């Protein structure tokens, strides 16, 4: 079943086309990984899915994106972002304690109000992001004091706390060491039980490790999309093969 369906989407920055007539779908509870060299439009695509791109005044777009058959461009932006959470390349804890970082959004959205409800949300979110054991004794220290990998998992916990349907990962491991990367990947695979995940990555091997399906973008166009196993063994396009075998990019 399609969770997200993109029809004939084109995106522009200052009139220049960065993504051209894209048709793609994301199946419920899968991890769709998107690979491609710089300027291939993959981050633009991701930031269109929760309309973060709309904040940039030089950005414009054509086409439609459906989330459960509902056009996201007609939806209230805040409600959309509650359903479609996003994790950035750089972990960005908000300037507050670990506890406050997690309850910030649920409180704003009116999902929780009582202290015991909040405690429960914090514990569950941190457990789902496999961070609970490391921070349970210092929930009231600043989120900025954690290590890079812990910060990134705190950001994951923060998104889980608002219980979204889709999570967008924008190169979530680009600043992390291999062990932290492995932990984040591990939690992504656990998360797809409950959530639908779109992962943009520059790391081709990461795509092969966690992706159910992989899409290859080049110069603003979708070159190929297939089951990850199939694509990495026998890509249909020459360009795809060149990229995943490291001959360019």
């Amino acid at each position, binding site marked *: 079943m399609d969770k997200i369906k993109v029809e004939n989407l084109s995106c522009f920055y200052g009139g220049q086309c960065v993504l051209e007539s894209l048709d793609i779908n994301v199946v419920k509870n899968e991890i769709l990984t998107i690979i491609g060299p710089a300027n291939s439009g993959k981050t633009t695509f991701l930031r269109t899915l929760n309309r*973060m791109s709309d*904040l940039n005044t030089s950005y414009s777009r054509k086409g439609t994106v459906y989330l459960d058959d509902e056009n996201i461009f007609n939806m209230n932006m*805040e409600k959309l*972002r509650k359903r479609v*959470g996003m994790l*950035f390349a750089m972990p*960005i804890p908000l*300037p507050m304690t670990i506890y406050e970082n997690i309850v910030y959004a649920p409180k704003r959205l009116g999902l929780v109000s009582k202290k015991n409800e909040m405690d429960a949300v914090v514990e569950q979110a941190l457990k789902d992001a496999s961070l609970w054991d490391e921070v349970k004794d210092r929930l009231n220290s600043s989120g900025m004091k954690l290590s890079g990998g812990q910060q990134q998992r705190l950001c994951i916990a923060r998104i889980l706390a608002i219980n979204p349907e889709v999570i967008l990962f924008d190169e979530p491991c680009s600043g992390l060491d291999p062990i932290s990367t492995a932990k984040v990947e591990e939690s992504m695979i656990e998360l797809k039980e409950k959530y639908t995940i779109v992962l943009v990555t520059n790391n081709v091997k990461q795509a092969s490790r966690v992706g159910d399906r992989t899409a290859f973008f080049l110069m603003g166009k979708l070159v190929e999309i297939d089951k990850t196993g199939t694509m990495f063994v026998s890509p249909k396009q020459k360009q795809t093969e060149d990229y995943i075998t490291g001959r360019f990019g």
Partner: protein
Amino acid sequence: MKRKIIDTIIEKIIFFCGILAIVFVTLIFGFLLKEGFAFFKEYGVISFIAGKLWYPTSDPAQFGILSMIVGSLLVTAGACVIAVPIGIMAALYISEIAPKGVRDVLKSFIELMAAVPSVVIGFVGMVTLVPLVRTIFDLPTGLTAFSGSIMLAFMAMPTIVTISEDAIRSVPWSYKEGALALGATKWQTIRRIVLKAAMPGIIAAVMLGIGRVVGETMAVMMITGNAAHIPSSIFEPVRTMTATIAAEMGETVRGGMHYRALFAIGLVLFIITFIVNFIADLFLGKSKK
């Protein structure tokens, strides 16, 4: 060899320029202390600061500056009540909401506001605001602490706006993005994230604004009425410490009691502004971390 000498000379010149500011402040402070202490020895600190009567020329002379301290504090507090909320909101508008064209125009006008000489602000206030205050509130005179607060708010605003704006703009874009991606609205993001992260800088801006208001002389002298008594409301004339020094320095005998009393007022002012600036520095240092 020659290059080394030139190097040393230039280094010494730069060092001298750098140290000059410290030397000046120390000299001014030393001079204030010398004259002020000579006065305190004869008259006493308590009767000076807590004394209610200021009759410098009668016999025996009375040098109580409580009414002026109250006057200065009242005018400053009034100016803050007006300037701080407006200033911070203006800074928010400029840095977060205004489109680029509006922002540039607004910024340059606010910077221009800082360049208006205080005597001009005082003069404009005297001919426009003072009669207005008198008729609106039906007072015997429009020369009140309230009028002074309004005009001083104008003078504090540019400092508060420009420095807060810097602080708000230096909040990393990623913080806002992080909050927005969690479904926060623009206003929630501004209130809970942007303001919170910029708070040390904003407090410093307010402190520097207050420093400017406390030390301001010309405009308050022209607008506040200069009555040396303790006011019972903000709609009465007051006299500030600065205005007293400026108005009376010309009438004193050099080295006399009155002359020294004015220096003692200067010392009190210096200490107040020093504390305010010190707090501002504390917060500015914190916001840079």
